C-alpha cells in the first residue's frame, strides 16, 4: 500500500476514533434530553491547494449516534448530502448490521442513503465518509462545505455539529453562505490548534470558504508595492530610464543569433480587416461544409422526464429499440430544451414518473417545445393533468404506453418505425459512425471558437482602421460590422447545430456536462469562458495587432498593467472584490451553483444587469415572451459604440478602454452560442443606446486626461 494512502487511512481511522470518543458527551446530551434523540457529528479535513488554477479535495467523516432509543416500530432514517456518502459501519444495540444500500440521487439532486432502525433498537451508531472537491485560484483556495442533513419522521435529529481542520498557517479569509452572500469571520470560530493543524467550528450558514496561506498577505503587499512603484514611475514619466535596461537585454538576446529571434515580427502585415473578414467567412464555410458532410448525429438521443431511480431502466428499454441511445434528463439541462429540440437534438421524449414537486418548473420550459420532437412517449405513471395537457397539444405525435421502462414488442416496433420515419440522413449517404462523429463534433467545437476569435478580430480591426475618418461614417461602419459579426456568427451556430442535430453550445448548461454540446466534448461544458477568452483576445488582436492598429505606448501599457495588478493583488477589500468578480469567469466545478455569485461583485453584476434590462424595457424589450431581452446580447451591441470612439480618447484612456471594451465585447459575444435569434433582434437598439452611455463614461475619462495633459482645448 502506498505511503500516502496508508497515512490517509490512518487519518481516517484516527478521526473516527476521536469522533466516537467524543460521542459520550453527545450521548450525555441525549440522556438529559427525552429519548429518541440523534446526534450528528461531521468533521471536514481540508487540504488547500494554493495555485494559479488547480483543484483539491477535502475528506469528510461523519458519525450518526443515538444512545437512548425507545421505538414502538421500526423507522427509516435518511442521510442526505451534496456529495456521495459511503457508509463505513452500521451498529444497532452494539451489533454490526449489514451496510445499507449505496446512495441514490433524489429528485432534489441530493445523494440519499436510507437505513432502517429496527423497533427493538436502544442504541445506534453509523459512520460515513465522503469527499468534496475544491479549487485553487490566484493562490487562494475555494472550498465548499458539504451540505449534510439527517432526517427521520420518528426520531428527533439534532442539526449536524460540523468542525473543520486545516493545516497550520491557513487563514480563512472569506466566508459565504451556500447562496454566495458574505458572512463575517465569527461564523467559523477557532476551536483549537496544534503545531500541524487548526480546528474551526462551522455554523450551519457557512457554505463556502475562501482560504489562503498566511504568506499571502505579505506577498500581496510586496507585489502591490512594486505595482505602485511602477505606477508612480509611469506617472512621472521615468520609465524611459528603465526601458534602456530592457533595450540592452533585448540587444544581448539578439546578439546570441537564435534563429527567428533577430527577425522582425511580421504578423501585423498578415492581419488586415479585409483578410480577417475573409478568414471569418472561410471559417464559417468550413464549419458548414463539415456539418453537411458529416452530420447528422448517428446516435439516437432521448430526453427522459422521469425519477432519477427510473432513468436507467428506461434507457435500457430504449436501447432495445434503437441501439446505443443517449439519454438526457432535466438534471443535466432543462432551460435550454427549446434550443436543443429546435436544432433537432432529440429523436424522442419520454415522459414518465418525474417527481410532481419539480414538474411545474421543468414543464414550463419543456411543454411549449415538445412539438419539435418527432416521437413523444407518455407512460401511465405521469400525472393525469400533465398527460392530458400533452395529448391535447400534441395528440397525433403522442404514443401512450403502460410503462416506459417495460415496453411491449408492439410498442417497441411502433417507436422504431416512428424513429425511422423521422430521423434525418446524410445528403451524400456518408456515415461517419459514432467515433467519427465525435471527432467531427470536436473539430466543429474548435472552429466555433476560431469563428468568435476571427469575428472579434475583424470588428477590432474595423474600429482601429487607420484609413477610416473620425466621423459619423466611422461609427456607422463599426456598428454595422458588429451587428453583421454577431448575427452571422449566430446564424452559423444555428445552421451547423441543425445540420449536426447536436448543439455547438448552450446557454445554461453546467461546466461539468460533457455530452450535451460540441464544446462540452472538449471539456468546457457550455463553452462560455473559452468563447469569452476567444472574443476578448480577438478584439485585442484586431484593435492593437493589425496593420495600422491602435498604438498603445509601453509607458501606458505599464500604467494599465500596474493598475490591474494593484487591483487584483491588493490585500484589502478591493482585491477581494476583484477576486469575487474574476470567479464569475472561471468555471469552478466544485463551487457549482454559486460560481460567479459571490459577495459584493455579484451584487454589482446584478445592478449592471438591472440597468441594462431597464434600458431594454424603456426601448420595448421584454414586452412579450417572444421578444425577451437578453442582457448578454445587449452588452455585445453596447460594446460597439465605445469601440468606434476609441480613436477619440486620450493616450492612457485608450489603453484602459481597449481592455475594457474587449472584455465587454467578449463577454457579450459569448451569447452567440445561445442560438436565440429573436433575442438578438430585440437586443440591438437597447445595446446601442447603452453603448452611448458606456462611451460617455470613457469619453469623460478621456476629457479629464486631456485636461491633465493640457490638451483640453484641442480640436479632437
Amino acid at each position, binding site marked *: 500500500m502506498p505511503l500516502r494512502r496508508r497515512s490517509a487511512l490512518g487519518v481516517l481511522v484516527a478521526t473516527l476514533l476521536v469522533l466516537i470518543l467524543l460521542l459520550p458527551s453527545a450521548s450525555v446530551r441525549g440522556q438529559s434530553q427525552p429519548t429518541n434523540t440523534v446526534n450528528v457529528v461531521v468533521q471536514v479535513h481540508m487540504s488547500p491547494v494554493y495555485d494559479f488554477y488547480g483543484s483539491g479535495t477535502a475528506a469528510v467523516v461523519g458519525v450518526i449516534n443515538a444512545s437512548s432509543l425507545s421505538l414502538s416500530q421500526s423507522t427509516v432514517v435518511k442521510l442526505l448530502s451534496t456529495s456521495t456518502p459511503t457508509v463505513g459501519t452500521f451498529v444497532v444495540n452494539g451489533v454490526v448490521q449489514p451496510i445499507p444500500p449505496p446512495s441514490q440521487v433524489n429528485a432534489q439532486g441530493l445523494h440519499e442513503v436510507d437505513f432502517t432502525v429496527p423497533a427493538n433498537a436502544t442504541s445506534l451508531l453509523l459512520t460515513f465518509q465522503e469527499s468534496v472537491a475544491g479549487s485553487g485560484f490566484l493562490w487562494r483556495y475555494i472550498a465548499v462545505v458539504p451540505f449534510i442533513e439527517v432526517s427521520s419522521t420518528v426520531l428527533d435529529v439534532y442539526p449536524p455539529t460540523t468542525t473543520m481542520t486545516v493545516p497550520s498557517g491557513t487563514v480563512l479569509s472569506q466566508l459565504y453562505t451556500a447562496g454566495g452572500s458574505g458572512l463575517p469571520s465569527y461564523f467559523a470560530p477557532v476551536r483549537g490548534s496544534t503545531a500541524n493543524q487548526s480546528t474551526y467550528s462551522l455554523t450551519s450558514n457557512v457554505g463556502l470558504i475562501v482560504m489562503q496561506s498566511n504568506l499571502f498577505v505579505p506577498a500581496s503587499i510586496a507585489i502591490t508595492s512594486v505595482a505602485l512603484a511602477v505606477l508612480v514611475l509611469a506617472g512621472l514619466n521615468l520609465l524611459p530610464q528603465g526601458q534602456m535596461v530592457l533595450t540592452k537585454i533585448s540587444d544581448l538576446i539578439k546578439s546570441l543569433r537564435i534563429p527567428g529571434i533577430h527577425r522582425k515580427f511580421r504578423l501585423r502585415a498578415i492581419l488586415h480587416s479585409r483578410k480577417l473578414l475573409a478568414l471569418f467567412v472561410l471559417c464559417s464555410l468550413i464549419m458548414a461544409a463539415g456539418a453537411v458532410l458529416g452530420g447528422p448525429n448517428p446516435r439516437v438521443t432521448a430526453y427522459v422526464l422521469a425519477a432519477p431511480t427510473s432513468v436507467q431502466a428506461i434507457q435500457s428499454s430504449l436501447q432495445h429499440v434503437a441501439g446505443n441511445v443517449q439519454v438526457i434528463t432535466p438534471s443535466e439541462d432543462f432551460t435550454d430544451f427549446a434550443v436543443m429540440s429546435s436544432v433537432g437534438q432529440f429523436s424522442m421524449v419520454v415522459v414518465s414518473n418525474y417527481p410532481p414537486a419539480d414538474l411545474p418548473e421543468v414543464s414550463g420550459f419543456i411543454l411549449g417545445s415538445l412539438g419539435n420532437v418527432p416521437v413523444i412517449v407518455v407512460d401511465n405513471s405521469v400525472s393525469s393533468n400533465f398527460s392530458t395537457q400533452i395529448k391535447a397539444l400534441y395528440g397525433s405525435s403522442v404514443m401512450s404506453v403502460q410503462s416506459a421502462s417495460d415496453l411491449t414488442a408492439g410498442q417497441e416496433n411502433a417507436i422504431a418505425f416512428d424513429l425511422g420515419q423521422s430521423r434525418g440522413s446524410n445528403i451524400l449517404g456518408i456515415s461517419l459512425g459514432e467515433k467519427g462523429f465525435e471527432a467531427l463534433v470536436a473539430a466543429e467545437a474548435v472552429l466555433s471558437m476560431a469563428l468568435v476569435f476571427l469575428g472579434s478580430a475583424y470588428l477590432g480591426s474595423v474600429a482601429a482602421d487607420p484609413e477610416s475618418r473620425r*466621423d*459619423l461614417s466611422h461609427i456607422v461602419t463599426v456598428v454595422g460590422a458588429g451587428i453583421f459579426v454577431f448575427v452571422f456568427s449566430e446564424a452559423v451556430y444555428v445552421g451547423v447545430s441543425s445540420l449536426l442535430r447536436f448543439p455547438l453550445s448552450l446557454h445554461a448548461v453546467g461546466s461539468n456536462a460533457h455530452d450535451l454540446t460540441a464544446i462540452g466534448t472538449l471539456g468546457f461544458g457550455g463553452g462560455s469562458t473559452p468563447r469569452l477568452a476567444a472574443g476578448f483576445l480577438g478584439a485585442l488582436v484586431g484593435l492593437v495587432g493589425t496593420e495600422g492598429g491602435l498604438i498603445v505606448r509601453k509607458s501606458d501599457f505599464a500604467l494599465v498593467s500596474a493598475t490591474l495588478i494593484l487591483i487584483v493583488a491588493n490585500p484589502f477589500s478591493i482585491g477581494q472584490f476583484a477576486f469575487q468578480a474574476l470567479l464569475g469567469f472561471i468555471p469552478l466545478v466544485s463551487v457549482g451553483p454559486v460560481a460567479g455569485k459571490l459577495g459584493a461583485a455579484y451584487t454589482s453584476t446584478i*445592478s449592471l444587469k*438591472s*440597468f*441594462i*434590462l*431597464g*434600458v431594454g*424595457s*424603456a*426601448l420595448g424589450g421584454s414586452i412579450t415572451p417572444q421578444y425577451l431581452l437578453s442582457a448578454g446580447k445587449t452588452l455585445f451591441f453596447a460594446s460597439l459604440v465605445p469601440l468606434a470612439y476609441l480613436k*477619440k480618447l486620450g493616450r492612457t484612456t485608450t489603453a484602459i478602454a481597449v481592455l475594457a471594451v474587449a472584455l465587454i465585447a467578449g463577454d457579450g459575444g459569448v451569447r452567440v452560442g445561445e442560438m436565440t435569434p429573436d433575442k438578438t433582434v430585440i437586443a440591438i437598439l*437597447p445595446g*446601442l*443606446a*447603452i*453603448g*452611448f*452611455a458606456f462611451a*460617455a463614461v470613457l*469619453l469623460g475619462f478621456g*476629457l479629464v486626461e486631456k485636461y491633465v495633459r493640457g490638451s*483640453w*482645448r484641442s*480640436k*479632437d
Partner: protein
Amino acid sequence: MEIQRLISASNPLLNAVIVVYSLVVMATILPGFDLVSRIILIPYYLLIPGFCVTQLLREARTILDGLFFSVAWSIAIVVSVVSIEGLGYSQLPVNIVIPVLTIVILALVHYRR
C-alpha cells in the same frame, strides 16, 4: 464645418435658449404648471441633451452628423436616467435630472471653447 461655424456664431443666444428651455422643463414638475403643454418635452428629450454632448465632443461637422449624434446621445441619456431611476432612485425625477445634466454639459462646452 459649416454647422460648427453657424453654431459658434449664434452661441450666446443658443446657450440662453437651452438654459431657458431646461428651466421650463424643470418647471413642469411643479403642481399646477399647466400653462405650457407637456408636448414641449418631446423635442427637448429628443434633441437638447444630445446636442450639448455633441457640442462638447465637437462631433457636429455636418448637419447630418449633428442631427444623428444629437438624437443618439439624447436617447442614450434619457433611457439611462430612466433605467437608473428604476433601480431604486425614484426620488430623482427625470424632468429635473436631465435638464440639470444638460446645463452642466453646456457649462463644460462653454468652458472648453
